[in-house]
């Protein structure tokens, strides 16, 4: 009997693994790229595509094959939903084909494991919701800028699914329709602290979502970024003299700006500074700008730049230099990936625009302040899409690093 049970176990093991593999192999090798995962809302990759698009046995090839194999597992969507029904159900959530619905009506895109890491997944008290680490950090940062006579403008971008709720799965109750609106509270908090924040959902809805987004795209297009940014500076025209005036006809056709990807560390001269900092002889040198040297000493370089250079996380920033612009001043444009589409617009207005996104500044709370010290912008523009403020929204917001990005740090003061 023992031998029989052992044999049965071995056969079960092999049949299970081999069965899934054989069932998947046809799709893995011959599957069409057009096939999409309903659960994840994306196209599934195939081995044939991996072979076609990558050099054999290169690291890209191997990664692509692994991805294709994972994507083409037999009945993958069904297996994912089966597991999620159990694991998500264990937390008291409901789950459907594309989303999980939390206890308070918030939702997450199925297919990501991020919901267990998203804050506010457990109910927290209203008083805690009223304050936001991100909002506080940004308000502190703006106050700092004011003290240095640097203007700021914050632009919060409504997502396409907020502009057009019909795009959401039917099982979702849009959070913005509820009485409880953390986004609005955070914007109100920022405005109370003197931060100029532009958020105009109605403007987008009245104009039509296609003016800002391509269908089914997550990011807005450049035209939409320009329209929304124009509206923003129109509303806050009192902040800067060059705002609110119509330069479009004069500039849009004729203006040329050269935008390039830059290694920001080297652009700002930080890499040479790093090497010189490693040379203790620098301690006696006085030619550095005093505040930068102070930042260096306080740990900006120690913790930030060395790691950033090593991680290459500052190398994907963009720098724009305009031959003709409305203003000769410099702008530091920071935020999330929504800044990239708006870079062109701002480069019409300003002769130099340095665009650094939160994706490329990792977790270092001194980095943005250090950038301000070195780049010395006349204006700081912060652009975030709305879910960065509202952890309850889908998309796994990278709010933790955002908060750290702006947080006041003793090490750089």
């Amino acid at each position, binding site marked *: *009997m*023992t*031998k029989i*049970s*052992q*044999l*049965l*176990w*071995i056969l*079960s*093991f*092999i049949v*299970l*693994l*081999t069965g*899934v*593999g054989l069932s*998947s192999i046809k799709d893995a090798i011959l599957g069409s790229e057009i096939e999409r995962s309903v659960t994840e809302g994306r196209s599934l990759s195939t081995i044939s595509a991996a072979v076609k698009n990558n050099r054999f*046995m*290169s*690291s890209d090839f*191997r990664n692509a*094959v*692994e991805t294709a*194999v*994972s994507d083409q*597992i037999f009945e*993958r969507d069904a*297996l*994912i939903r*089966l*597991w*999620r029904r159990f*694991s998500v159900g*264990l*937390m*008291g959530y409901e789950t459907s084909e594309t989303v999980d619905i939390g206890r308070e009506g918030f939702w997450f895109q199925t297919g990501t*494991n991020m919901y*267990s*890491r998203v*804050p*506010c*997944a*457990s109910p*927290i008290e209203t008083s*805690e919701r009223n304050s936001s*680490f991100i909002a506080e950090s940004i308000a502190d940062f703006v106050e700092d800028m004011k003290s240095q006579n640097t203007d700021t403008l914050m632009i919060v971008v409504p997502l396409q699914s907020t502009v057009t709720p019909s795009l959401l799965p039917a099982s979702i109750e849009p959070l913005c329709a509820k009485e409880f609106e953390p986004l609005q509270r955070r914007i109100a908090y920022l405005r109370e602290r003197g931060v100029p924040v532009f958020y105009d959902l109605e403007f987008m809805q009245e104009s039509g979502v296609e003016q800002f987004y391509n269908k089914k795209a997550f990011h807005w297009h450049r035209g939409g970024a320009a329209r929304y940014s124009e509206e923003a500076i129109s509303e806050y025209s009192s902040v800067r003299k060059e705002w609110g005036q119509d330069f479009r006809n004069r500039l849009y056709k004729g203006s040329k700006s050269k935008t390039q990807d830059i290694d920001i560390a080297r652009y700002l001269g930080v890499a040479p500074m790093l*090497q010189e900092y*490693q*040379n*203790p*002889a620098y301690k006696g040198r006085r030619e550095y700008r005093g505040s930068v040297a102070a930042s260096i000493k306080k740990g900006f370089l120690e*913790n930030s730049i060395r790691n950033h250079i*090593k991680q290459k996380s500052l190398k994907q920033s963009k720098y724009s230099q305009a031959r003709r612009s409305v203003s000769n001043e410099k702008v530091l444009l920071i935020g999330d990936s929504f800044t990239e589409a708006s870079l062109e617009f701002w480069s019409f207005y300003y002769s130099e625009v340095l665009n650094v996104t939160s994706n490329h500044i990792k*977790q270092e*709370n001194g980095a943005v302040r250090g950038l301000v010290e070195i780049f010395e912008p006349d204006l700081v523009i912060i652009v975030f899409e709305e879910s960065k403020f509202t952890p309850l929204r889908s998309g796994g917001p990278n709010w*933790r*690093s955002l908060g*750290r990005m702006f*947080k006041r740090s003793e090490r750089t003061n």
Partner: protein
Amino acid sequence: MVFSSSLFLFYFLPAVFLAYFASMKLFGTGVSNIVLLAFSLFFYSWGEGLYLFIMVVSIIMNFFIGVLIQTSRFRRSVLNIGVLLNLALLIYYKYIGFIVQSVIDSAAFAGIAVDFTAPEVHLPIGISFFTFQAISYIIDVYRNEAKAQRNVLNLGLYISLFPQLIAGPIVRYSTVDAEIRERTITLSAVATGLRLFVVGLFMKVALADTMAYTVDTLAEYPVEALSSGTSWMLAISYSFQIFFDFAGYSLMAIGLGRAFGFTFPSNFDQPYTSLSIQEFWRRWHISLSSWFRDYLYIFGLGGNRRGAFRTYVNLGIVFFATGIWHGASWSFVFWGFMHGFFIILERTGALSFLQQLPKLFQRLYLLLVVITAWVFFRVEDFGDAVIVVKNMYVPTDGGHPLFSHISMHTNLMYWTVFAICLVWAFASPNTPKIVEQRASQISASGWDAAKSFGALLLLVISLLIVVSNTYSSFIYFRF
């Protein structure tokens, strides 16, 4: 490719089994060795590409060194050169950047100008493991505990065997020498081996990875903002994560080895139930600690044969090596020294005092030391690690509700898995023993069927998780 990936589970493993068992049945051990070697080299090249050449160089180099040790008059010199060559390989690929950076930092501290930067060298996966295996081979040949392998393919199989290539256990050559030359496959061994593999897979994907979500979240926060509660949560969750991750992987390696006819030694024996740090190191990563004990402490440094002071110095060296083996960072060195310090303390009399206390206090002592030390293992920045430890022992409510409330970072799934980890790590007997245990004659078949059914259930759950998850890699992958 990792053991918990779809490619490995659904394609590579069935292909290996098919080819291996067929070749074993039709042609015997010799051909099956070649089959296993081919799959192992493919396995490594899939992860490392052209860096496979490093492994091939190591195999060929150690093959000739082993033969020379056995045949040459200058055995000791050849051994010394062999050890140095192996260490040179390891030091270059793993430590050169760290060494150069430390020199630069030290020079800067001393006021000396230097004009170079640390090189960035690719770290081949598993180099620490297969280098140590190679060193154990040539030392075993030198000590006449094993005959030099005259078949380079067999030596290649020993060094590159894929179950334990990436993350151990470190298998002594003398342990598997006979099995490499000739082995038999039994139904019982294959069944047991596959059960061990499945249990290990479950430990990794269900337990370790769940703990990892919370650990990764907390480790990203500014450490000054963590409260005492969340700092302890980070430390304890990581203690579970690293145990189940590493023990799980070891079990998978041991299980696959068993299925192929190899008997790899156990690598973990309920380490968190230890009553002293000395005992902990007899139960944690047993293959590594015994390697350092036998090859460095005893063979290299003389052990405790040269007086008390020299013994403590030797222990310090061993734990420095243990720390740095885990990673090229001063945090790992500190972690090693921390363990070494407590071992020395115990040997100087603290253990006798400890043994007079109730077991509860002995356990508490062990857990406080080990869990605290893990903070330095996980938190990359040494300064940040110190702050986390400070938060653990000096009560603080943190900087913001977001970072200080444990409830913000947990849910029912976390607590369910936490409870399982607690029972598994502390209350249950050694996992391999359960899987291998023979029941009494009366209930042997029932017990076997129950184990098989249990393993099948764990397999189904693990496969569901694997399919649901994104890529995940083992903690010890880059050692």
